[in-house]
């Protein structure tokens, strides 16, 4: 296999694996802040116990997020050094800002959140929870600013030619508020809330089904459902705005997402389908004219299609199309699930609705899959560019790195990440089964040796 494929595979593996954890931290962080706030106001011991339990979950998740995040920090340089030289002036500053404003904040106050229960006052502990949660949100800001700049570059100019060409910042704020950064940020943050909320829903539903920690589970579930409702609605709105920006700035990505082949014809929207890239056809269920209507305000307005572009300007179509459509399907499912739960809660039947609880337990996986599919749509849809319209992915590779070196690191990553993932699930499972009564946990864990 060649260097390009291997490097892209490795980047995809490491970023997708990493991205299991940060959304959980962001979403769970928010839920922890809400729970600890409830405790601060009411001083009910149950709320304290809830906070403690979810903080333990947060800690385990956070550690793997950190460990896999360090990889990302250096992988731009190891595998994409030409890209790094090209964008360092722009991209590097966002990454450094992330370290200074977000990572220090998160990891510093995490110490108090996890280990400071008896060392600081309740108020200071609450502030620490808030700062960890803010830090997690801040880290999303800077990395998404950097990533969005690669989609819709702004506030820069190109200096030098050929081998030495690079992008330099001309306007820092134009770079930060590039056309897609804020709506992508909003879309990612609410997705993270949904991820955290469904994790809490899943674990709570499991307790209810097993008739353990009933009060604990009921209150946790209420909190998570409110977060889920806000996030599920927010997801639709931000997704809609995001698609408009793609239509405006990244036409090649849009046509791939929608599978719109014909050049200059009114465009419909597929609900689902299969793209046959050879025959240049999409088989599926289509609402005619909807895309034209949404993008141009007129169902009969002609739009550019896949055939309007040269092949070397286009991303792979089917995978972008499918990722995008499955993401939306999952989003809609989660919305329906959230509303159903709320209706049952309203009628006072949720905690007895065994069938619904049984759906909630495995539903923890759905936001995770949607997160990955969303990034696949965004990043594969950007191909063949690494910086849209400026630098091709194939031009961003490291020159000092050979394919066999990447193969070596890729194989090692595969093994290590498989191991990590199995252990992560195993430890989560153990902790969840032990339940929120930490005295039990401590006795189980540290028998005298």
């Amino acid at each position, binding site marked *: 296999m060649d260097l390009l494929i291997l490097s892209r595979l490795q980047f995809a593996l490491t970023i997708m694996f990493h991205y299991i954890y940060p959304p959980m931290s962001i979403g769970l962080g928010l839920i922890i802040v809400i729970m600890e706030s409830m405790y601060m106001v009411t001083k009910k011991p149950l709320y304290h116990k809830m906070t403690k339990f979810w903080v333990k979950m947060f800690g385990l998740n956070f550690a793997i997020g950190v460990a896999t*995040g360090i990889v990302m920090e250096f992988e731009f340089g190891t595998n994409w*050094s030409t890209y790094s*030289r090209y964008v360092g002036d722009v991209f*590097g500053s966002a990454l450094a800002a992330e370290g200074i404003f977000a990572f220090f904040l998160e990891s*510093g*106050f995490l110490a108090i959140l996890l280990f400071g229960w008896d060392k600081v006052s309740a108020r200071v502990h609450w502030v620490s929870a808030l700062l960890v949660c803010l830090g997690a949100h801040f880290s999303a800001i800077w990395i998404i600013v950097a990533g969005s700049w690669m989609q819709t570059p702004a506030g820069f100019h190109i*200096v030098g030619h050929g081998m030495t060409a690079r992008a*330099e910042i001309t306007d820092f704020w134009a770079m930060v508020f590039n056309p897609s950064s804020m709506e992508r940020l909003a879309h990612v943050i609410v997705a993270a809330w949904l991820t955290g909320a469904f994790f809490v829903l899943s674990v709570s539903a499991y307790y209810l089904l097993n008739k353990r920690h009933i009060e604990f589970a009921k209150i946790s579930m209420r909190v998570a459902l409110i977060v889920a409702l806000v996030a599920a609605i927010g997801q639709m709105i931000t997704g809609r705005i995001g698609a408009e920006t793609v239509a405006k700035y990244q036409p090649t990505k849009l046509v791939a997402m929608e599978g719109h082949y014909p050049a200059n014809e009114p465009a419909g929207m597929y609900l689902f389908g299969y793209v046959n890239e050879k025959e240049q056809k999409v088989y599926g269920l289509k609402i005619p004219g909807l895309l034209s209507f949404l993008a141009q305000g007129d169902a009969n307005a002609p739009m550019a299609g896949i055939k309007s572009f040269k092949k070397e300007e286009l991303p792979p179509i089917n995978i972008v199309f499918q990722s995008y459509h499955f993401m939306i399907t999952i989003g809609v499912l989660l919305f329906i699930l959230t509303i159903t739960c709320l209706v049952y809660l309203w009628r006072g039947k949720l905690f007895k609705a065994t069938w619904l609880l049984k759906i909630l337990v495995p539903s923890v996986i759905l936001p995770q899959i949607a997160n990955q599919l969303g990034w696949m749509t965004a990043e594969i849809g950007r191909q063949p560019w690494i910086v849209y319209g400026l630098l091709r992915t194939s031009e961003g590779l490291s020159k000092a790195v050979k394919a066999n070196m990447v193969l070596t690191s890729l194989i090692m990553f595969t093994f290590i990440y498989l191991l990590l993932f199995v*252990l992560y699930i195993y430890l989560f499972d153990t902790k969840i089964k032990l339940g929120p009564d930490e005295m039990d946990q401590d006795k189980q864990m540290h028998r005298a040796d």
Partner: protein
Amino acid sequence: MDLNLIWFILVGALLTGYALLDGFDLGVGALHLFAKGDNERRLMINSIGPVWDGNEVWLVTGGGALFAAFPDVYATLASGFYLAVFLLIFSLIFRAVAIEFRSKQPFAWWRKTWDISFCVASILCAFLLGVVVGNLIWGIPLGADKEYQGSFWGLLHPYALMTGITVVAVCMMHGSIYLAMKTEGSFHNKIRSWVKNCIIFFVICYVTLTMATMLYVPHMVDRLKDFPVLFLVPMVQLFAIANVPRCIAKGWDFFAFFSSSGAIVIFMFLFGLGIFPNMVLSNPSPQYSLTIYNASSSVKTLETMLVIAMIGMPIVLAYTISIYWIFRGKVKLNEHSY
């Protein structure tokens, strides 16, 4: 003073912060297997429990700052040291995971596996960082395109191995003193004896490395010759090192830690002074070296970043110090511990 120099100093300051802080927790890891029994080992891990991941952020932010201020240096080093960088990263992953996972299952085999993993990963991590430093001093083959032209094995020459071992020794000394501060009772007495052995190991490395540097890479001391007053700096370092066993003997653990911190800061200072104005020395073609001028970002970016650092870093320092203050004193195990 121009912006490039300021950023050379700032990146240096971040990496010095990393050396000081992760220095001791890598050292604790390196010494981990000398602790016997579950209780002692839990004390070891929990002594760094609240702070280790904050310490690692200094490396992450230092890396980010290097990327932003000197993209060519970041790109050349990361791609040139490809396999070494990933080994470093794997060891950081295993360390993090070992700390987090170890005490979450009661089985003896489980704990033993993570104990070994924690220790080996810590040593490997310190060693590889030392190898990188050694190569930056020695110089690496660069081409006109700023790309590394050697191989992975080319990085492992004797001088680099020597700096690698020395960094392990520094971390072990620093970590053992940190442990002396954090422990009490019979375990504390045991650790005091580790400190002595660590100092001996460190001094052997220190003297050997200093001689090797004078003989083989004398350009590292050129600036001391140009400004003889700077000769005071290594002298202060010698006093700081000599002060460590004195303080330990008198039971002043904190001052011993303070002295070893001073010694580390001076190491970083002398390293920066020695390589300046190069960031990556090209050997054998010095004209291709990456300097603080030919490898930097634009003035605009350096300025913007300076504003960000001026706003951010004082706040970071303030709460980092507060957090260390909150977790001061001897480590005790409770239900929140690892």
